[in-house]
């Protein structure tokens, strides 16, 4: 059952990602990307990452994609015009490189993890039962990963300052 649902959302994610990169209109592309992000959130739930799934919907599908759509509409790019997809040569090169990459990534699907570092099945669910779904992410985040967390806050501050400076009328 879980397996079937997983593949259904996986196919939705892959199909809408394909539509995202092939639509001529950037607004259509952005909306198909939102569908991909929602399908990925469903996959995260099935992989025992409910908190990450909520973050995915709030941060990606909510904040980041609204920012993209805002910029597309601000620049008035939604109107019909010539396609921005490259010609036959560029397209051919892209497809060949993509196929090569897929061929190289294909062995990933047969991954077997070494048993010495693998947790017993169900241990993530047990941890979530014990500490709570948010707590099981928050404990390592504010413990072992505290310094990376602080660095991420500095990064976000730099991004805020950078965005304000770049958006000024006179650069």
């Amino acid at each position: 059952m879980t397996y079937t649902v997983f593949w259904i959302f996986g196919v939705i994610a892959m199909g809408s990602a394909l539509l995202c990169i092939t639509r001529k209109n950037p607004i259509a592309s952005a909306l198909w990307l939102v569908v991909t992000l929602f399908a990925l959130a469903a996959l995260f739930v099935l992989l025992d990452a409910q908190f990450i799934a909520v973050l995915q919907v709030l941060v990606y599908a909510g904040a980041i994609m609204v920012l993209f759509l805002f910029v597309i509409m601000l620049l008035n790019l939604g109107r019909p015009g010539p396609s921005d997809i490259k010609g036959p040569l560029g397209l051919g090169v892209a497809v060949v490189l993509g196929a090569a990459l897929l061929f190289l990534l294909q062995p990933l699907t047969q991954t077997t993890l070494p048993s010495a570092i693998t947790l017993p099945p169900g241990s993530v669910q047990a941890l979530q039962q014990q500490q709570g779904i948010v707590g099981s992410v928050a404990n390592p985040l504010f413990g072992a990963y505290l310094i990376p967390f602080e660095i991420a806050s500095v990064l976000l501050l730099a991004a805020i300052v950078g965005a304000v400076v770049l958006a000024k009328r006179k650069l």
Partner: protein
Amino acid sequence: MLLGPALAISAVLFTLGVLGVLMRRNVIVIFMCVELMLNAVNLTFVALAQNLGMGGQVFVFFVMAVAAAEAAVGLAIILAVYRHKQSVSLQNMNLLKDG
């Protein structure tokens, strides 16, 4: 288990993102394809976190923070370039190219 399918879907999504970057000329669409690649990697992290511990989910959190910062700064750069060039096509952004 779901590890194999998750890694397969992740590989396909990453490839689609690369394909989008290679075949489009609109900077904003290329930027969205970069986000697609980041999401494919997030799926890998979450799938492996199920077997290897919660560190993977914490890393997804950091990837999201970096992606949000990148989107804010990147879109501000695109806006600044658009004001300068009146275009978001990569063909018109060749200032560093000879001739």
